[in-house]
């Protein structure tokens, strides 16, 4: 209740006292976002098995046909079924974004907690380094890494990890700093607990909320980076059914055959929107939980 209902902080305290605890309402945005995200995750796992056609099968007699019963979302210039390609592409995008985020968040959390808890020169140096890394616009840093390592899926994932580490480290560090001198951590220091115990048992369980929210935001950026890199030809390479790549390759035909671009574009936007919704909802929900816990 730092400055929330400051007007009657004193009297509102009572509000939190009743023994009967009402369950907190889960924000609508979290439900919608979570549902769509789960849908995409399921699609990513089973996608390749449920498509009507293999994603790279050419149908030379049906090139650039509009959506029909046979080809639900139409076909591209080689007569490949766009529905099959978009569904197959889900696993590529979701796994690339997910793995990149996982790498970035894991390393970022470790660095952030270590830096924030240790403080002093170590912290100073680590934070200067993140400053430098964060001086690159995310997409450009990813492009730089891919340029150095070579353009393919694995390197695109690595580049996402590299872009995220400093940002996650920053967020986690500031959350850790907030707990560094809090009394239960000091109580552990007085007991003589080890540094690892304090970081992982006392601090980490209390900074999950910001980490979860940050992960969600990162996931939406990761999707954005994945598709942008492949759009620029720096991610997945043809004939991979990557959404960004599909847009890049078929864009020339979009005036005559808008459906070639429409399907992958909608998939991208829907996935990013749902991650953002989930992130917003989680933030709201966790904030509400925090106030009712105090």
């Amino acid at each position: 209740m730092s400055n929330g209902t400051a007007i009657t902080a004193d009297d509102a305290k009572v509000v939190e006292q009743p023994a009967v605890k009402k369950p907190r309402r889960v924000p609508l945005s979290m439900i919608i976002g979570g549902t769509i995200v789960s849908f995409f995750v399921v699609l990513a796992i089973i996608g390749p098995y449920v498509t009507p056609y293999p994603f790279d099968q050419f149908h030379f007699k049906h090139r650039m046909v509009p959506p029909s019963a046979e080809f639900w979302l139409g076909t591209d210039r080689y007569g490949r079924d766009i529905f099959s390609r978009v569904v197959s592409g889900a696993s590529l995008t979701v796994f690339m974004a997910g793995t990149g985020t996982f790498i970035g968040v894991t390393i970022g959390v470790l660095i952030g907690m270590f830096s924030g808890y240790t403080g002093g020169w170590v912290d100073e140096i680590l934070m200067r380094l993140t400053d430098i890394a964060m001086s690159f616009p995310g997409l450009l840093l990813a492009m730089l890494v891919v340029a150095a390592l070579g353009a393919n899926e694995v390197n695109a994932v690595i580049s996402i990890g590299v872009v995220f580490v400093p940002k996650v480290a920053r967020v986690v560090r500031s959350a850790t700093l907030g707990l560094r001198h809090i009394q239960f951590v000091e109580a552990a220091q007085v007991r003589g607990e080890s540094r690892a115990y304090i970081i992982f048992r006392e601090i980490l369980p209390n900074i999950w909320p910001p980490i979860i929210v940050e992960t969600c935001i990162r996931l939406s950026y990761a999707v954005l980076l994945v598709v942008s890199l492949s759009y620029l030809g720096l991610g997945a390479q043809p004939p991979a059914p990557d959404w960004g790549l599909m847009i890049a390759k078929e864009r020339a035909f979009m005036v005559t055959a808008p459906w070639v671009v429409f399907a992958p574009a909608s998939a991208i936007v829907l996935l990013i929107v749902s991650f953002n919704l989930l992130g917003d909802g989680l933030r709201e929900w966790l904030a509400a939980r925090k106030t009712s816990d105090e």
Partner: protein
Amino acid sequence: MSDGGGGGRDVLTIRDLDVTYFVRGQEVKAVRGVNLTVRAGETLAVVGESGSGKSTIAFTTMRGLDAAGRVMNGSIHFHDTDMLALRPRELRAIQGSRMAMVYQDPQTALNPAFRVGDQIGEVVREHTEMRGEQADNRVLELLGGVNLPDPAGVAQRYPHELSGGQQQRVLIAMSFACNPELLIMDEPTTGLDVTTEAHILDLVANLKEQHGSAILYITHNLGVVARFCHRVAVMYAGEIVEEGPVSRVFSKPAHPYTRSLLTCIPKLDLSKHDRPLSAIEGQLPSLSDLPTGCIFAARCDFAEDACRATPPPREQIGDDAEDTVSCHRHRELPPFEFERHIRDVDQARADATSDGALQVERLKCFYPVRRRIIEYVSGKQQKFVHAVDDIDLELGRGRTLAVVGESGCGKTTLGRTLVGLQMATDGTLTFEGNELAGLARDRGPDLRRRVQIIFQNPDATLNPQRSVGDAIARPLELFNLVPESGRAARVTDLLRSVNLPDNFADRFPHELSGGQKQRVAIARAFAAEPDLIVCDEPLSALDVSVQAAILNLLVDLQKRSNTAYLFISHDLSVVRYLSDLVAVMYMGKLAEVGTPEEVFVPPYHPYTEALLSAISIPDPMIEQENIRLEGPVPSPVNPAPGCRFASRCPRKMTVCETQEPPLHEFSPSHRLYCHIPREELDKMRPVIRYAGEETAVV
């Protein structure tokens, strides 16, 4: 100041006020059926603990209730104006000019982005015809009026550049910008040092005298009420349970809640050897699910079935129509008596002196002031904050040494160094032959186990993600005190020893009240079977009724375990109650040490004298000297030679500014550092006396 303020016109009339908050689908009935009248020239106190609804009344009157709060019933009249019916424009004409407010936390009540002069000037320009230079001059006049030195300089400052006391003066200056007819003060001195509090209260009393404003004073501090107000309304859980002139309420309290409030705060003449404090058991009722009968019945010692069945009517006692109480049994209560205890100074001294298990010798703790890189390169000398500067103390097994002083005096640093949260710069700490050196993790496990700490803020003291049982069991595991099979049983024992039910082991901190959390923290400290516990202001965040229970618990546990306490506090009454020895600190230096019976009576250190004079005592039978500290607080960074207190000392001599004060040893336990010759110190008059006597209250 206890008698009626001379019945001027009614400035504020509140009738049958009900205010409800709508929070997450619940209706919290924060204020119910409140009637209040404030007259011109009068100060009405509304006193109560957290959750009593007192601040809600203040903000409802100002029409500053937040969006979740709504007035369900009743009226508020300012003179003849119906405050609840005003249109925004009419309301704005009253707010800030005819009716003004002073807030609890001045730091957050001022906008950090604007100069304070501009923030006051805004009010002047909005509500008067003054413009340009005329308005600027008015701002300076107002700042001068609240005794701020160099008003022109202060006007140019930003809020963060001022101390808490100065910020509050700025807010007071702002509230008097248009000579308000009604001033609402919401806990204006909470969080300020006692010496600052005394200044602020003097100032407001003065301004009120000049302008004849009526004051509605919201507070939890009964001492301030006794000192500053004419009439008082006591609130409990949203209702006024008793109202009357301060002189009557404090001498013949009629409601059981008022009586408990008055007896649960430790007084300067009460020691742990006299009796346990009378705590109020139980918890505030839920305001969304109210009991049918008397709101206080569940916690009342005198409650009968009738009390639980019907709410008590408001009854007049005495001649005054506003001298009322709401209690079924107020006529049947035994008479309320003030106690007096006979003091045996020698016995107290014998109790205090002992083997000296803890020895603090020439302890210094300095913090380096951060230098910029350029300053490193240019070889500029490192500066230090002298937080603790050359202190000698001694504490025996099973005894309590209290350290008192204003914020920033170094008392917390002393405690943190003891438990190893901070490094000592110089000097030694010995505990029963073992040196307490360095940080906690550098000390051996046995030494670490024997020295524990209890913190100030109950909300931060427990890890929110860990159950109460786990928190208490951790020291048992870490120090190998109890094998794993017996831990659960030991946790239950510990919970019982702090008067918590067994099933609390499975609860999480957010399910506990502040007092309960503090009990768990105490159980956790005692789980390590320590010989010394540093208590860093463990009571200051708690309501007085809860404070009393925790104090009793600490006394009880000490008797049983023979653990020594280093008790850090700013509250002289609590210190007097709990301690065997008192150390008064000022700016990192020791001013005076002794038993309470020695420190709280003359001869005093001038600083002790000023502290005693500044505290507010809720007892009409007591007289108090009026000593105020003027002069600037010196910087703790590389302080100048001489007595640290010299800049503010009312008894300063020239030698004080250049030489360290010498030590006077009045007894083996009573030491005092001051330049004033012994004969003069001996001639000092008691600061706090029983009315009409020369005996010091102790």
